[in-house]
């Protein structure tokens, strides 16, 4: 009759020793060595604690409806168009804008705008434009991994060539998210910039471009235009049209990971090193105990006699 191996079990042999003995000390040292040394190796090889992590997300961007268009001309009077009451009250006579068109396009109907088209037409009353500045306040929202809600700007500047009589300016660009520090993923932090960059107050300093720029760039998170391509056209007409086609792509964002994420990545690294070191220290212990280099009692279920002997000895101690 053939016998097949249907079940196996191990016999546990216990090696016993007194608390203050060479054997105890050896086991303690090797155990501590594996625990501490794997931590030290993990730390010193770098990247043990995950300090920054990244994710990609398409933000939810929407125009607030306000705008400021400031243009300098070849004479001393500028062109200023805006929705803010300050401009209406103080600079209405320089508002030569005839049509303002905004269109936000959501191609996939996922609630996130993918593109925006801004078209501004203004009448040129026998003057030519020297430079143009466009400021559009936007609402910027991230919601995937780290919540972030802020009010930001689309800022565009263009200087015309000296003798150019430009009647059309077409701009194609992408919106970029720039951060000078990582986002902290917490509800409390998510709204630190959720206030307007341009304050609706009756003082002119709130609307001066240099102040808006300075205040805006002091923020840690800002939006900018990249991949900007502009084309100008010269036609024999008395109107100027600015057409901005802006795409909102996915943004690369880095953030401070949470406590458990840091611990998780550290644990993966730790355990990988620990397994190797534990195997090594096991080998050492095996060699020492097998060769009886230290003194111990063997409590083996096979040898009941010696077992009894140990109990007697222990009670004696």
């Amino acid at each position: 009759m053939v016998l097949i191996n249907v079940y196996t079990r191990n016999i546990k042999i216990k090696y016993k020793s007194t608390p203050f003995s060479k054997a105890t000390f050896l086991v303690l040292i090797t155990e501590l060595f594996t625990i501490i040394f794997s931590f030290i190796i993990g730390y010193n090889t770098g990247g043990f604690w995950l300090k920054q992590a990244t994710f990609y997300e398409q933000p939810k961007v929407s125009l607030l409806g306000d705008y400021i268009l400031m243009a300098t001309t070849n004479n001393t009077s500028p062109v200023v168009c805006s929705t803010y009451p300050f401009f209406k009250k103080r600079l209405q006579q320089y508002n030569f804008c005839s049509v303002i068109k905004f269109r936000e396009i959501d191609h996939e109907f996922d609630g996130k705008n993918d593109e925006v088209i801004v078209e501004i037409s203004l009448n040129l009353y026998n003057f030519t434009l020297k430079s143009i500045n466009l400021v559009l306040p936007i609402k910027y929202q991230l919601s995937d991994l780290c919540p972030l809600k802020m009010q930001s700007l689309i800022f565009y500047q263009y200087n015309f060539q000296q003798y150019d009589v430009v009647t059309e300016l077409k701009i194609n660009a992408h919106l970029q998210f720039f951060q000078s520090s990582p986002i902290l993923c917490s509800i409390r932090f998510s709204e630190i910039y959720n206030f307007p960059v341009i304050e609706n107050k009756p003082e002119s300093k709130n609307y001066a471009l240099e102040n808006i720029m300075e205040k805006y760039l002091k923020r840690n998170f800002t939006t900018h235009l990249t991949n900007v391509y502009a084309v100008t056209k010269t036609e024999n007409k008395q109107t100027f049209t600015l057409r901005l086609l802006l795409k909102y792509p996915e943004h690369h964002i880095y953030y401070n990971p949470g406590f458990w994420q840091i611990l998780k990545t550290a644990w993966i690294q730790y355990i990988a090193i620990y397994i190797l070191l534990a195997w090594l220290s096991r080998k050492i212990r095996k060699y020492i105990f097998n060769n009886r280099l230290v003194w111990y009692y063997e409590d083996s279920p096979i040898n009941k006699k010696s077992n009894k002997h140990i109990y007697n000895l222990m009670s004696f101690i």
Partner: protein
Amino acid sequence: MESNIKKKIALTIFIYFVVTCFGKEIIKIEELASTEVTSISTTTDANFKGENVTEEYTTSEFYNEKTTIIPLYNNETVPNKVANTKQVSPDFDFCACDLQLNICDLNCCCDQDCSSQDKEVFEQCEVEPRYYDARYCDYVKYIYINNTRFEWEINQNGLFCVVKSNTPPSFILQRKHPLKTFEESEYEKNNKFSWPQYTQGGDSFNSSSKFIYGSPIWYVDQKGLHKFDVPNSFITNRCLIKENIFYLKNIHTSCSQVDLSQENSQLSLKYYIDNVRFVAVPKLFNITKYKDKLLESCPKNVCLSITPKICDESFTHCANLSKNDSRINIRCNLSIKDKSTTCVSVVKKLKYIFYHNGTKGLTDILLLTYLDEISYEFGTDVPQINQDFFVNFFWSNITTKRLVSLSGNPGYLIGRPIAIGILENLKNGTDTLLSIKRNVSEYTDSFLTIPKNLNGYCIFTSSEYLSIEFGYNVLTRCQFQKTVYNHKKVVNGTELCRTLQKSILKIWNIHSNKMVGSFGNADIKKPDDWQKILYKKLPQTILNTTLGEYYPKNNSVLCKSMIKSLNMDIFHSRVDVGSLINQEKILALTLSFDDSASYSLPFKKDDNSLLLNTELELRVSFYDLTVKKERKVVDPPSLDIKLPYDFFYPFVRINNSGNQFAYNFLNLIILFIVLYLK
């Protein structure tokens, strides 16, 4: 129990349908196999139904596969149902790209107006936004909607399709119903784009509002009550806008007037002072009581009149101005002889000084003015007249003369000037008393200043100087010109050169007894607050080493060891003063001269003069000596073992940005509980 049975029955039905469908599909495949119909079988056109022509098209533009096209009505395998599909569902009444009635729309393959011949001109078919659920057998029915140049049908190739599903009926939730009320429409506007509408409020006079920092200031003239404002520039330098002035907010505006003529009232002082009276405090101003004659009926203590004064450009010396003075009006004269226009009494600078008493309002108003004369020649562009407006508020019990501004209290603030004083020995009998002298009224005597580069030349006067600002490194260059005269019979080269050297030291405001304030609030009564300036070489030593030689042959003086540049090094550190942290303290101010220059200067015999014309350079550098603060324990030696700062990163707070670590103690406890339970 009953529901269970129902479920079972439904399942059986479902299985039955699937199987039937499966069966049908196999039959279909068998039938179609004989006519070699692949996934799409098509006929060129219904009009060609009589002709038994099989054409093969490679329609790689749309499908990357070879398509066999066979006449529709020649193929008996196609069920008759196909022809009727268009009547099956009302959805197919629409063809989304059919935008012109009775005319064939280009690239619109579902347009009924297009014949197959018309369709041959199409480049592609426009994709319609339609949705089919391909899992259901009905899908076959829907797909017969023709959206290609050809008439075609699809034989479903899937192994199974769902004939009937017993899932509960579902519908798509969507907004279809029109909005009933205006309020409903307003509600729907929330969180959606709409043009912003601002309400323009706060323009009307409100006597009950508190008069505090930032409240508007009102004035009365013959036209009525207005908010006080001054001209300001915006975008360009022209006086485009009027800047509102708010209570206790100091402001300086500057802009250009482009119209230089008597008609431009803003150039004339009369515009600013004539019949203008300021409301001291809105609470006392009773608009209903004074009615139309606001200016006349308003009492003097409520409507304050302005005291105008005519001053020099820096507003240091002022003289009173009477109401009948001719200078309050601008006067322009055309001079044909000089071919120019000259305007006098043009307002160039205006300084409003409002004395106030807190919430009790304004008490007194001074208007310091600087008027100038402007002329321009005919034919040239009219010059732009730059106007400056200053508005300053002061407590009524304080005069401007007594103002002492500190550069920080106690530590220096970045950008503030550095306090200096002069050490004086006062002999009181046998005792010598050290005291610091500081002339507060003179800026150059109380703060560290250097010569200003004005059109390239070094200028250093009480009004023209460059102030050293704490924390800002500066390098300035300017041309220094000085003529010295020899009054003796014999030309003494050394003496002339030393006089020149002295004048260089003077323009740099070098004084060997100069002291610098350690803190921004250095007090002259406390000598400990001051430190002596350290020199590499004392100014006196430099003067002593300066030598000059006169060469009568070529009439020149050779000056040796002349100074050409100065290094001013300021050492500072952030220290804790009491409980205040990070207060900037000046630890030392050192001056080192580069006296290696030698000049051969021409000596003019006719007036015994020696002219020095050289470039001087001054470099100011700030050195931050702050070390990392450490708390040292005075007690027995302790073992100082340190792990790297981020060894236990997520458990400890590393920088201020780590707000999230506030909860980490809680996390740690949870971690230990988890480990303990294990």
